[in-house]
């Protein structure tokens, strides 16, 4: 029975702090909270191109109505979270560390929460391309936090089928319990979703990996597999070690396959979806419901940590208000303590990536002690799940030697935070990597812009050259033509002269005759 599991190098065992938010069942935010004054729904909530707005201020929308159309294939749709009136389509503060704004659809709810007409998608009778379009238009993206559009991943790969479909219920980040609670309370949707994914990707087996610190979820999910008689779906308890829930790490643990950076996992015959995403795919196809809400954990410095199902666009502080943030709270973190992002304000909306609102305080997450010099102790290398040499990357990033950093595989870094977690010198290693990565991206963009500009400029020069040459030949041709015409004219004028002379002669003749007569 017991399946052979593999190991990944590195990883850490931080305090998990999960029990606190496991006490209560998932609450529907709408059922337990007053209606928010407005929903601020960012159009760009997934990896890929930002969707374009399909509604204007003043229009009324229904729950589930498409308000943001996907921009090309690498993009995902956005829908109204509830029925109401579109108050504005404008720039609003994003749930992003930058503190910048982006285009959002602001909906004033009418309180009726009326669904738009929707019907199950007959996905079994549709072509794979049509199913992918349906998922894209339903706005289904990865709910593990990376928000990669799911329709791009529902792909059997080159060989036409997957060997293994991995469903990720590991949930290794401390504090977060939304997947755990969803597996405990809504296992059927997840299993059914996994079965749909299994059929869409022609997967030979489906492995649902759950960290073994969630025995209840493992038991409930196993029971659900048996009850639903789901074929080729297996629940696998994996050892608890952060970041076992990283897609690459979980694939490695379950199958032994290491998916290199920049490669598609389908090339290796595997693909990975989060449990929440599997549930959302089930909802989108079997119920026809677009993605308008998700389950999230509110934890940290609150009196009553728990899980909610929250519509996208709900202000975070409205959700936290139900949990009683303690007075010394000083920040919201979206995600967990290892990889989460500091929010610029408490009012930013819940989005598809919000798996957790972690309320922090100075006491709970003290500011890091002063950064000391690196002593090359190698703790970070031991902890790195990507087998990188973090301290080398740190040297290069700090010195802005980006080429070297890339040579040492900077972009294989998954920013899991293990290195900074163990660093005795308190170096904010991940910050250096984030800095180096965004610098490299910016430079590459600049470089390609410069290359395009050079190409276009050179083309323009060549075109001007060509125009000049053409003009020259045209002029030459014209000159020749004119000359010819002149010559002709010359000839012509001679003839005229003759005519004139002849006429003159005739006139003279006639005159002579008249005179003579």
């Amino acid at each position: 029975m017991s399946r052979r599991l593999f190991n990944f190098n590195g990883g850490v065992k931080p305090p998990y702090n999960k029990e606190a938010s496991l006490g209560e069942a998932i609450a529907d935010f709408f059922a337990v909270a007053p209606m928010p004054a407005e929903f601020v729904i960012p159009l760009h909530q997934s990896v890929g191109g930002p969707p374009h707005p399909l509604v204007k201020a003043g229009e009324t929308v229904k729950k589930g109505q498409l308000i943001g159309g996907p921009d090309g294939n690498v993009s995902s749709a956005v829908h109204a979270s509830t029925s109401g009136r579109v108050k504005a389509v404008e720039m609003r503060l994003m749930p992003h560390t930058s503190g910048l704004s982006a285009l959002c659809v602001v909906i004033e709810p009418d309180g009726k929460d009326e669904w738009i007409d929707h019907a199950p998608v007959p996905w079994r009778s549709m072509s794979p391309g049509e199913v992918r379009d349906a998922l894209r238009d339903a706005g289904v993206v990865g709910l593990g936090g990376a928000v990669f559009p799911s329709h791009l991943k529902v792909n059997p790969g080159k060989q036409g089928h997957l060997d293994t479909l991995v469903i990720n219920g590991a949930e290794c980040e401390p504090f977060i319990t939304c997947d755990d609670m969803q597996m405990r309370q809504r296992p059927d949707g997840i299993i059914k979703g996994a079965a749909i994914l299994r059929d869409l990707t022609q997967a030979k087996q489906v492995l649902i990996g759950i960290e073994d610190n969630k025995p209840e979820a493992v038991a409930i999910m196993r029971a659900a597999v048996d009850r639903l008689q789901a074929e080729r779906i297996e629940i696998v308890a994996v050892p608890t070690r952060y970041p076992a829930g990283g897609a690459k790490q979980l694939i490695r643990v379950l199958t032994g396959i290491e998916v290199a950076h920049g490669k598609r996992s389908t090339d290796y015959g595997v693909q990975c979806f989060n449990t929440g995403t599997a549930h959302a795919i089930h909802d989108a196809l079997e119920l026809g419901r677009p993605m308008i809400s998700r389950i999230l954990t509110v934890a940290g410095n609150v009196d009553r940590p728990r899980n909610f199902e929250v519509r996208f666009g709900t202000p975070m502080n409205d959700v936290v208000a139900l949990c009683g943030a303690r007075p010394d709270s000083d920040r919201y973190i979206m995600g967990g303590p290892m990889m989460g992002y500091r929010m610029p304000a408490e009012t930013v909306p819940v989005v598809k990536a919000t798996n957790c609102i972690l309320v922090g305080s100075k006491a709970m997450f003290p500011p890091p002690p002063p950064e000391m010099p690196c002593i090359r102790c190698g703790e970070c290398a031991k902890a790195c799940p990507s087998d990188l040499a973090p301290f080398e990357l740190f040297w290069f990033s700090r010195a802005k030697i980006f080429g070297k950093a890339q040579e040492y595989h900077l972009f294989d870094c998954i920013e899991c935070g293990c290195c900074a977690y163990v660093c005795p010198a308190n170096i904010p290693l991940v910050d250096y990597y984030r800095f180096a990565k965004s610098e490299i991206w910016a430079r590459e963009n600049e470089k390609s812009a410069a290359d395009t500009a050079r190409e276009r400029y050179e083309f323009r020069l060549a075109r001007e050259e060509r125009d000049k040459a053409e003009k020259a030949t045209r002029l030459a041709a014209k000159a020749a033509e004119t000359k010819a015409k002149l010559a002709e004219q010359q000839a012509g004028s001679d003839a005229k002269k003759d005519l004139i002379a002849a006429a003159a002669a005739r006139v003279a003749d006639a005159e002579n005759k008249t005179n003579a007569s």
Partner: protein
Amino acid sequence: MISALLVMALGAVILGAALGYAAVRFRVEGDPLVEKIDGILPQTQCGQCGFPGCRPYAEAIARGEADINQCPPGGEEGIKKLADLLGREAKPLSGEHGIEKAKSVAVIVENLCIGCTLCIQACPVDAIVGAAKQMHTVIATQCTGCELCLEPCPVDCIVMEPIAESVESWKWQYPVFEIARRSA
């Protein structure tokens, strides 16, 4: 004593000959330096350096006829890169050639445009589209911000708009937890 001198002298002659041979034998054809300099220049083709485009400027630098601090769009960082490439000291941007500005794109105020096509002719990268007596518009993604279209416009309907930072283009800052100074 004499023999030591002779040995050293002989060594010098042999090494010199070898170097001289290598210089002839492995001579690099073409002028990759110009390519490298051109690769650093921002390709705005704005002509602020006093040359008609980035490549002529690159050639002038390679010939030693132009200094490395004449490119305002390249800014301090561009000068630094050129200095690194050429093994020279970086120096501040030369004031007579302009000042470094935030990256911007040209935007045509559409209700003022008379469709004269003068800007289209001025644009070095063909980033303006339109036809005679038709409204023109700038393809923002291809605009290099060279400002060459501003001057020819008879109705001054082109404005430069700085490119705003977006969530997508935002960059993580260099970490500054440094404990550098005692007072800090």
